[in-house]
């Protein structure tokens, strides 16, 4: 029966604390956690609690149990706002939610929470050394949300629901002013409008081609030099061709 097992079974809180601490320093988080789980309630409100609560939260963090890590770090920052470790705790709490954020195509409630927590951290510790890193994480999460919305819009185009696609790209452009996908969104909106126009009943084609032209102008105004320019140009030529033929043979 090892020393660890003996301490685990005994009621000596101080010994448990000491052992948990040394195990934690050695990086034996699983063993340390077992001890800490037993003594955390006993230390609540006592002077040692500050350190204990921090390493407790950090143990979850190290074990990649980010649900509990996020929660415990959050509790720590609320209980010890003046602590030296408060900044680290606030950051790790936010980072835990960042870690929980799933791939873009699933529900993004953790992403929203992570963004909120990271923003809180940036606001509270504007001079923190971790700030650039926090900003990187924010950008990454934002990117994920943008990608989600963008992919949904693109799917409307893929299933040939052009009206929904135009609307969805419109919304995307309005909602995400600084997005990386903006150029493509402008182009896809134009593409959707073009596809819609050419499958429309004859009486609507000209009007819709005109709308598409408008989207083309929007695209070229901002993103003339992007990778989509060539394809946009090709579509535009087709639009022009179609517009010209109907102008020379006016429908009665």
């Amino acid at each position, binding site marked *: 029966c090892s020393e660890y097992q003996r301490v685990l079974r005994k009621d000596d809180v101080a010994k448990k604390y000491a052992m948990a601490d040394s195990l934690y320093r050695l990086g034996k988080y699983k063993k340390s956690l077992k001890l800490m789980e037993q003594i955390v309630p006993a230390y609540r409100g006592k002077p040692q609690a500050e350190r204990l609560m921090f390493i407790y939260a950090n143990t979850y963090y190290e074990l990649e149990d980010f649900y509990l890590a996020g929660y415990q770090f959050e509790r720590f920052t609320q209980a010890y706002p003046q602590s030296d470790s408060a900044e680290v705790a606030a950051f790790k709490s936010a980072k835990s939610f960042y870690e929980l954020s799933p791939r873009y*195509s699933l529900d993004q409630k953790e992403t929203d929470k992570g963004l909120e927590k990271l923003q809180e951290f940036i606001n509270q510790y504007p001079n923190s050394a971790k700030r650039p890193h926090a900003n990187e994480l924010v950008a990454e999460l934002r990117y994920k949300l943008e990608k989600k919305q963008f992919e949904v819009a693109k799917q409307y185009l893929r299933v040939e629901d052009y009206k929904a696609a135009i609307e969805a790209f419109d919304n995307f452009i309005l909602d995400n002013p600084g997005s990386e996908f903006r150029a493509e969104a402008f182009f896809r909106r134009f593409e959707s409008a073009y596809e819609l126009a050419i499958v429309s009943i004859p009486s609507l084609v000209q009007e819709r081609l005109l709308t598409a032209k408008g989207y083309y102008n929007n695209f070229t105004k901002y993103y003339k030099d992007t990778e989509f320019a060539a394809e946009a140009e090709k579509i535009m030529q087709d639009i022009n061709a179609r517009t010209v033929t109907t102008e020379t043979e006016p429908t009665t």
Partner: protein
Amino acid sequence: LFSLQAQQKELDSGRKYTINEIKVTGAQSFNEQTVIAFTGLKTGDRIYIPGEKLSQVTKKLWEQNLFSDIAFYVTNLSGDQVDLELYIVELPKLHELTIEGVKKGKKKEILKDNDLKPGVKITKNLLNTTKNYITNKFKKDGYFNTNVVISTTPYVDSTGVEVSRDMKIVVDKGNRVKVKSIDFEGNEQFSDAKLRRAMKETKQKNFLRVFKRSKYTADGYAEDKESILKKYKSNGYRDARFVSDSLKIIDDKNVALNIKVEEGDKYYFGDITFLGNSVFTDGQLRQVLGIKKGEVYNGTLLQERIADESSPDAEDITNLYQNNGYLAARINPVEVAVRNDTIDFEIRIIERNLFYFDHVTVVGNDRTNDHVIYRELRTRPGQKYSKRDVVRTIRELGQLGYFDPEQMSPNFKKVDEANGLVDLEYSLVEKGSSQIELQGGYGGGGFVGTLGLSFNNFSLRNIFNLESYRPLPMGDGQKLSLRAQASRFYQTYSLSLTEPWLGGKKPVQLSTSFSHTIQYLFDPRTNDTDRDRSFTITGGSVGLAKKIKWPDDFFVWSNAISFQHYNLRNYNTGLFTFGDGYSNNLAYTIGISRNNTATNPIYPTSGSDFSLTAKLTPPFSAFNNVDYGALSEDRAVQQAIIADPNSNSAQLVDARARISEIDQQRFNWLEYYKIKFKATWYTRVIEKLVLRTNTEFGFLGAYNKDRGIPPFERFFVGGDGLGAFSLDGREVIQLRGYPNQSLSGIDGNTIYNKFSLELRYPVTLAQLASIYVLAFAEGGASYDGFRDYNPFELKRSAGAGLRIFMPAFGLLGIDFGYGFDPILGGTEKNGWETHFIIGQQF
């Protein structure tokens, strides 16, 4: 309360005394000091005796509800010094409660509603209220003669001190009372009998009524009174009301109801005018309303035609607006004039503006990828708001099987009145959609083990992405099934994968499957397996199915190509006359089906399901230059030799070898066509009782008469219909009441038909387990060719059974069927058969 008589003459009520000492007697579980501290009295206090202070203390103690007796005694009096004794009798605490004579659920209710937890003080009040509560509770359910006896017995701890009491409640419900008579007064328009008929729960005693017993319950009676008013109101008597109603207890078993009504006048609809409508014309609205001037006034109907609360997709005026973009439209019917017996209505409509969907989002998908969900949405950005589309989207998302249908909700996140935009969010909750089948059994001379896995929301593209294994790559809406079955003498493996949206563009379903079976020769007498002699079948199929919009959008058109290779290694089966050789089965299947069964796939209550398929092999004989006519003649000659009793053994061996040769040539590539038709209707009879009507027909034919119909792909009728271990593409047709496959020849038949009626009633349709009972009558038969065919010569059966569906296990069931006809080759009717149904869904 004050027991001061002994010293009465010595106490001067107008005088203050000093407390010399306070003692507490009678307290069993309370510390004396605690009680004294609670009274607030202490040695040295000067108080009037008797006086207000002591009254207050007594009152305070009573209010604790802890004591059954509280008294102050003056035990000693000298001058103005008094010794006080506080005598308290603690109320007994409840130790254990037993209730007899009621069911478990009711018991819990009684405990909860009366707060009968251990440790509660047993007061007279508690006993009385509990008793009244129980009596009233049963009275409400029609038990007027309920007898409740509550007794308590001391509970003594190990030292012999009574620490609490046990309580025992004995309930004798007695018999339910029946309603001897229901009499009405004041009814002129409807006879007593008619009004009684309107009462669905409370019925008069009547020998002839079999299904509904006469009983009286308070709730049922209240409901019935509502129904009577409704009956009046839907017949123009909008002022009808009850003047009084009384319940008379006749004797232990009978009560009589007497109801006095005031009918009031009969009213009619007068002018109905629409106000504020600009989108729809009066004529359009009038058509939906469907109420004409002069019709008998019916308030319920009017309300239903304006907004039917009972059904989200009803054809009413509110939905007319809601389905056409007018999210904020309000419709109010207002009585504007009552002229004699005619009521004029104004239907005031506030249309507001058109709404369009702006952002449409989905939340709660923790496993399923966005694209799988968004492609099913019928509400997309930029579309006009339509409630019907929202309702249909929810229904269709439920049918995917990935989400809990009970926990889905569409939420309007932002309603922007000014711009006519609405943000819609679908909130979903994922549910388990995988099934595991693990079976072990003893059969066919050894242990048979089966492992089946079916994943309904698989993600094929992540199959090599180790990180996505949680525990499996999920979320792309593909279906993957794996199955392996093995025993000592055979093994079979199969795999199938279905992608419902091939290419992600249109709902074109791609299904692929692969299977491999190997069977070794097994001798049941010696219990040996000979691994050198085997029969192997390897095959696969690829199919495409597409929803088509014509004739309506419930049709599915499907195509599949399948191939099977049979390989015999010194293995004689009933299928082939050759023991060494091979055979290939390449076929194309085309089918069309229509399924609009609704809404629960486990328990459809309406709709129908039709399918017509044709399975065709290429007509090899038309171009392979084999003279099957000559072969056929040759074969007939050889058979004549075998049949001839004068043939010697060498001739027999030669003839048999030649037949094998010929058959190998006939069956090297199988040639046949097969037509199948199946139709099933679901009809709601009453409430949840559903009738399933089913008819099936199948036909197997040959292009080339000389080549003949192969021994494959045949129909086997009878039994539970489970696709048992089979090598030859046989179709097992369920016909309960007979042993499995007992109604077809040993090699199967080429034509079959079947008719079946089944009544189903659900016990529960909960998420965890759906259970229903069924009764059936069916008939079917199989025939060898059209010469034998006689659709009226059926094997009939009837019986009853039970089905349990649990999402993790699939369907389980048992049927007891009685066969009225003899099985093939039998002479007596078959009688009872028991069938176990596993995993079959229909």
